[in-house]
């Protein structure tokens, strides 16, 4: 089964080559960062987290792809998701793996990474985030492999896996909640210190994860013989629609509290994002685009006819992923630091090495996901039977 992982059509080999190229570029850039320190990034004493931690935050959301198919399939016996479940779980595996890599490349002393385990501090939310993320990775890897094996041998999955599957549902909620708590517990950062952050993380995760999953399922349907079925795609599209609407509502709730409430420390980061402060507002075009695209995508998704036409659905899902990437993979982390607690406006823009490392980590995700999906396709296409 594993030995055939590199076998596939031209398209598959092109994807592997692209992924490998991304990783290669990332490795070169990371070597540069390792030699010269994180000073090669655009980070500063005022904006001390940037693209890496933002990608980590965004990808925790993508990992929600699993739970949104697992829950209906296993708890509500929603059979249409039968072929989708494994795709969702393996996407979660790739996403969580990238999350961990992004935290790793952000560390100033990566050689000391074991200190996190040798000297754990339960008072730090980071300790709990590490715990829930590695747990989620393990759970999805086990569930995915067992499901794959069951399919290969054409036997029912073993009974012991069911409690693990049930556990994976609240566990998925925990990864978004704990990741939000990383931010929401910091009094120094009023932009993050809001009770809506964890619910927002859940809503945006339940939109972006399944939206990416739809795109992947549509691509597989088009370019391979693997079809998850129209019913599954439609059901997932409904989930994306509602999650997106709820996310927009949460963003609105937060905007009201900040802007109408008018506490300056709470409003200033929003002012920086939407209007700029003292003429500085590098994120303005991004944030306006992101919010307008999010709004447009949510409204268009609400029209059932748009969801039924797969071409339109694909575009809308791409818009959802893009808008939420701007929201969580860019604006949310950076704006927490602007203005600084001392009121200084220091802007941030990632440097070339930083972008290259980021692309490299995504390259790892591409490779892992492509190979895991290859395993699924190999079995479904009955290559082994041949």
């Amino acid at each position, binding site marked *: 089964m594993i030995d055939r992982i590199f076998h596939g059509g031209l398209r598959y080999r092109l994807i592997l080559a692209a992924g490998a190229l991304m990783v290669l570029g990332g490795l070169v850039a990371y070597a540069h960062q390792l030699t*010269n320190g*994180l000073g090669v990034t655009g980070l500063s004493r005022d904006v001390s987290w940037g693209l890496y931690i933002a990608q980590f935050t965004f990808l925790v959301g993508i990992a929600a792809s699993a739970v949104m198919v697992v829950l209906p399939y296993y708890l509500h016996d929603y059979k249409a998701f039968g072929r989708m479940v494994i795709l969702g779980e393996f996407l979660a595996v790739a996403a969580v793996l990238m999350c961990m890599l992004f935290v790793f490349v952000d560390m100033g002393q990566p050689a000391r990474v074991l200190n*996190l385990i040798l*000297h*754990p501090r339960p008072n730090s939310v980071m300790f709990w985030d590490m715990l829930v993320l590695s747990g989620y990775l393990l759970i999805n890897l086990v569930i995915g492999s067992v499901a794959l094996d069951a399919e290969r041998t054409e036997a029912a999955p073993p009974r012991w896996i069911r409690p693990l599957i049930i556990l994976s549902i609240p566990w998925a909620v925990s990864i978004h909640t704990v990741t939000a708590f990383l931010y929401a517990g910091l009094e120094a950062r009023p932009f993050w210190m809001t009770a809506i952050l964890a619910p927002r993380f859940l809503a945006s995760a339940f939109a972006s994860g399944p939206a990416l999953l739809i795109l992947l399922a549509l691509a597989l349907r088009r370019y391979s013989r693997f079809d998850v079925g129209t019913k599954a795609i439609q059901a997932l599209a409904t989930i994306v629609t509602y999650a997106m609407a709820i996310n927009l509502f949460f963003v609105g709730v937060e905007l009201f509290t900040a802007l109408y409430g008018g506490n300056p420390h709470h409003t200033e980061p929003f002012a920086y994002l939407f209007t700029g402060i003292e003429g500085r507002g590098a994120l303005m075009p991004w944030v306006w685009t992101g919010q307008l695209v999010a709004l447009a995508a949510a409204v268009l998704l609400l029209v059932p006819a748009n969801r039924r036409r797969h071409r339109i659905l694909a575009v809308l899902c791409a818009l959802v992923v893009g808008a939420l990437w701007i929201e969580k993979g860019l604006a949310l982390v950076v704006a927490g630091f602007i203005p600084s607690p001392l009121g200084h406006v220091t802007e941030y823009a990632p440097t070339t090495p930083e972008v290259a490392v980021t692309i490299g980590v995504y390259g790892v995700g591409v490779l892992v996901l492509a190979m895991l999906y290859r395993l699924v396709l190999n079995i479904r296409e009955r290559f082994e039977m041949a």
Partner: protein
Amino acid sequence: MGATRRGFLKGAGLATVGAGLGLPILDPARLAALPDGVRESGPLSRLAIVVDVDRCRLDGVRQACIEACERAHNVPHLPDPAQEVRWIWSETFGAALPDQVHAHTPAERREAPVLVLCNHCEEPPCVQVCPTGATWKREADGIVMMDMHRCVGCRYCMAACPYGARSFNWRDPQAFVPTRMDGSPYSDYPMRTRGVVEKCTFCAERLREGLQPACVEAANSVPGGQGALIFGDPTDPSSEVSRVLRERHTVTRRPGFGTGPNVYYVAPAGAGAAADRGGPS
């Protein structure tokens, strides 16, 4: 009495464990000398600095404090101000203490330069978030310590600190450490590696030798700087710090955060000197 006896046994037990772990706080002699339950009653002592903003106005005074600190700790001078390492530095009164200014605060007071440094908070957010215990609050005197050998460089503490008091070594600092004419560093304070966070420790290494923090000593040795920085134990009523906190109107940075800073500021008199000094305090 039973309670005393139980207290003694508890103390003796703790002392044995403490001695085994090498924890000074559980030193047997210390526990034996303390009445039962005194450890619950509060900190044994605290260390604090009072910054007299008016006496810090002279550039020479602030410069002397900053330079003394940087020489004592081999603080690097990085070319890019955005990636600077700072232990003690100047901010405007309005930026450092935004709760103390308003729309009609005279510019002279708002823009008055003040020295800022780690506040050695009673509830330090940096200690709360550190995933490895590389930063911790010393029980005996409340100093927020930093172990630059354990720090993994995640910078969670920098996100958590409401005072910007933590600096990350974005580059290898050793090439940027100022040296004497002969190229040797000003002190034997350990050089840092890149990728770790550092900050003021109230000169824990100097206190051990019975010295005052370098900034305090420097301020007192500069003309016009006498009393610009006062160091001592605010829980000791006879200390100079206690006297100033009793007699002058002092404030701390961002009190609304509940961090309980141990650096106090005697607000500048500025244009409204009479109002500041004459109010009920």
